[in-house]
Structure formats: structure tokens, C-alpha cells
């Protein structure tokens, strides 16, 4: 059981590092730490701290990041869990709302890459992200009733 947990932890940690480094082109880093006080506590009961270092900033715990930085950290952790159990699909509802243009672009890149392995359904209002899609559904209301229209992206991407 201890072995199982520590294997799982290492896999997610490795994935967190790889995803965040990719998103920040190697300028940032992120990792997980087990709070087992240097081995003195039982790893089966210790918590997991998530450390994140954005480019040219000091490393901080994910809880004390800014709103936009938390969004990037959250998606990194979420996608890293794939290494334990692949999710058949993701549903993301305007997760880009608090991102500036640099982080929107980072998000677009990782979502684009990960969608190639499965399926990501993402609601967004930002053209930059819609442009990265394989398929687009437009939704509009007519007299309070929702209608949907599908757009195929020309494959010539």
C-alpha cells in the first residue's frame, strides 16, 4: 500500500514538472512535495504541497498565487492526474476567464496538446482559444430558447 501510494505520487509529480515546464518553455518549474517532515512521518498520512515557480519569480505554494497563476497551476495538476487514470473527456467552463494574453496562450498550447490524446470540451469567450479548436459549436438564444450551430475547422491547420 505504501509502495502503491509512493509510485502514484512520483508519477503525478513527474507529470506536473513536465506539463509546467512545457507551458512556460522551460523558464518556470512546478513540483509536488510530501509533507512527511523528511521521512519522520508516515507517508500514508502526510499531506501533499504543490510548489509553483513562475518565470523570474520565487517559488510559492499554489495557495498563495494570484488568480491567473492559480488557474495555470490548477490545470497543470488536473492534467497530471491523467498519468494515474486517463479521463475519457474533460469539460472546462470558461477556465480562461482570469488569464492575461501570455497565460491564455500557454493554456491554449497545453489544451491543444492534451486534446490530441483524448477529448476536451471547452466553453470559452476568447477568439485565441476558439482558433485552436478542431471543432466549434456556436450557441445562441432566440426568444430565450438555445440553438446550436456547428462549424468545421478547415483541416488545413
Amino acid at each position, binding site marked *: 500500500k505504501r509502495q502503491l501510494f509512493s509510485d502514484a505520487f512520483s508519477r503525478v509529480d513527474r507529470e506536473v514538472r513536465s506539463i509546467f515546464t512545457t507551458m512556460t518553455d522551460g523558464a518556470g518549474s512546478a513540483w509536488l512535495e510530501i509533507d512527511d517532515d523528511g521521512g519522520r512521518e508516515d507517508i500514508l498520512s502526510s499531506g501533499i504541497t504543490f510548489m509553483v515557480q513562475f518565470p523570474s519569480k520565487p517559488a510559492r505554494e499554489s495557495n498563495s498565487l494570484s488568480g491567473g497563476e492559480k488557474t495555470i497551476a490548477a490545470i497543470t495538476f488536473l492534467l497530471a492526474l491523467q498519468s494515474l487514470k486517463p479521463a475519457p473527456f474533460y469539460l472546462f467552463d470558461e477556465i480562461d476567464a482570469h488569464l492575461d494574453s501570455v497565460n491564455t496562450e500557454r493554456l491554449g498550447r497545453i489544451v491543444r496538446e492534451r486534446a490530441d490524446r483524448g477529448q476536451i*470540451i471547452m466553453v470559452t469567450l476568447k477568439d485565441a482559444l476558439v482558433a485552436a479548436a478542431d471543432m466549434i459549436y456556436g450557441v445562441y438564444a432566440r426568444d430565450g*430558447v438555445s440553438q446550436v450551430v456547428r462549424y468545421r475547422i478547415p483541416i488545413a491547420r
Partner: protein
Amino acid sequence: VYIKRVEIYGFKSFARRSTVLNLDRGLVCITGPNGSGKSNILDAIAFALGENSVRSLRVDRLQSLIHDNGRGAMDGRSGEEGEGEDGLSAESKGDAGGDSSNSSRKRRAVKVSITFDNSDRGIPVDSNTVTIAREMYDNGENQYYLNGKHVNKSTITNLLDVVLATPSKLNIVQQGMVMRIAELNPEERRRIIEEII
């Protein structure tokens, strides 16, 4: 496994006729003005997968999921007349047409069905596609269907274990909630990894 098709009938801002989204693998973006119905599509998927929390479905009670196009006026009739192809499978066609012949007050008010591509047999059912459907009646009763056959909810729940990344449905991130995932405390983060293994 991925979502191939979503069919929505009478759920929130979707009228009582069939609205179909045909999806594919890869990145699907849903976009449109405020209040057009984007989040309602994601709510519809969660509903079909058995979501019962009114908070997650963003309503005060489950009856508020029933399409209602004017304050209090259930415009049942106008939504059903002919617009859009009524893609509901034959088993429910009888329902839509037969309101008057159905003696009990039960009328199907909402139906959402999801078809998964299962060619990799990720879902332990031996068919290339798996369709999960949920109907809710205006008396609040629910019925679940698996590939057209009426089943009870626990049959669906076992299947969902495969479909949802974690029991706490982390692969569904609702509007305004993404920052919370970075605000988990160390115990919560550990519990998430434990849930999966």
C-alpha cells in the same frame, strides 16, 4: 472512449424538441454570447451522468431544470411542434405523442442522452457505442436508459467509474471554479490521489 453525441430535450434553455451536438475527439470549443446556453450544455451532460446536486446543476430544485420559457408559463406546446429533427429514439416517441393517452399525470419533461464512442472498449460493455440516457418527468421521477434499455441508476454508476476521472468529478470544471483546484489543502490533494489508485 469519448463523447460522440449529446442529445438535449427540454433541459433548461433547450426547448422540448431534440437538440443534437455531434462531437469528435480532440478539442471542441463551445462559444457564444452571455446567456445563450453554453453552461447549460455542460450541465446537461452532468445531469445525464447522474448529477443530482442542485448546487452543481445551478438550480434551487430539480424541477427548475424543466424548460420554462416565460415566468411560470410552461410553454409545453410551442416547443414540441416540429422545429428541428426530433432525434429521440423510438422508445420515447410514444411518450412525446401520447400525452393525452397516458392516464397518469406523468409527462416526460426532460431528456438528455449521451453516446460514447467505445471502440476501445474502455467502458465494460461489448458494443462500439454506449448510450446513457436520463429522463425526468414533471412529477420529479427519473428513469435511466443504457443502450435503449431501462436500467436502474446503480448500473450507470458502475459504468461512470470509468468515465469520470475521479469520484469527485475533477474532469468537470464548472464556471468560476477553476481557481479552487489550486487552493486545495495538502490533505485534500493527497485524498484525490488516493481516490484514484
